[in-house]
């Protein structure tokens, strides 16, 4: 769908880690394309969903914790996609604010 793997977004970043090299120098258009691809995939998949599809239970066992069975439904997935996007959107706004402040007020030289 996206053309990048789960490691390529760089999260979670190690302590004192730098942004992943795979994203170095990428222009905004690169990220806009990634987001557009993901959303098009979502639209294509859920456009025909019925209420029953939204309530359908799914199960998974995370490889890192096979003793746990995770049970969720498609309605919760869509809720989570929304709150996940909104949470990171809030972080992006705050990072942009800090970036602007840092550029306006350079750190004093040692």
């Amino acid at each position, binding site marked *: 769908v996206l053309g990048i793997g789960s490691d390529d977004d760089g999260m979670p970043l190690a302590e004192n880690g730098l942004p992943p090299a795979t994203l170095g120098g990428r222009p905004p258009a690169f990220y806009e394309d990634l987001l557009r691809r993901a959303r098009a995939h979502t639209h294509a998949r859920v456009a025909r969903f019925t209420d029953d599809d939204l309530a359908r239970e799914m199960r998974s066992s995370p490889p890192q914790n096979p003793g746990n069975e995770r*049970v969720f439904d498609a*309605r919760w997935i869509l809720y989570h996609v929304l*709150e996940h996007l909104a949470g990171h959107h809030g972080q992006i706004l705050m990072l942009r604010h800090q970036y602007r*402040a840092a550029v306006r007020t350079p750190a004093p030289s040692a």
Partner: protein
Amino acid sequence: MTVARIETLLATPPGFRSARVAQFLWQMDEQRRALLDGVRDLTPEALQWQPAPGTNSVGMLLAHIAYAEAHLVQVGVLGEQDGHAQDVIGITEEQEGLPLAPGAPPSPALAGKDLAFFVDVLARARAHTRRVAQSLEDADLERQVHRRRPDGAERVFNVGWVFYHLLEHEAGHRGQIGLVNHLRRLAGGG
């Protein structure tokens, strides 16, 4: 081997006239649970810590979430001309402190407040929202609200959008609170 079952199903809580509204409230309550889980054990010092002057503290963001919820329900769902969120949560828009002027310290009205203060403010806002939401029907979600902006532009939204916005607004600020907490720990703030 016993397998633990972790269930995450979006529910339709009872007590509402509309299942759609009930599901909005379930999502908002789930967001609130995650929000409070992320700030538990924060001290008054941590709640008023700023990454830099002019940036919001966690306490200000919590107060803002509560203020925005009470205000939006009053003007966006109840259709009141002027919000009076202070009657619901006990603090004014000026006291929650957003937007903060460049270089400004955190809102002095929130200085020294402990977590219980913010939890109470948030709980008051949500209790108000729940009381209002329980009487709504599906058709109310389509009801349009027209408001005039200071520049003369007409703002049009519907009640369904208000519930969506309450959810994304809280989720966005929850993301910022997580980032402020992370920056505070990196700065040695415990």
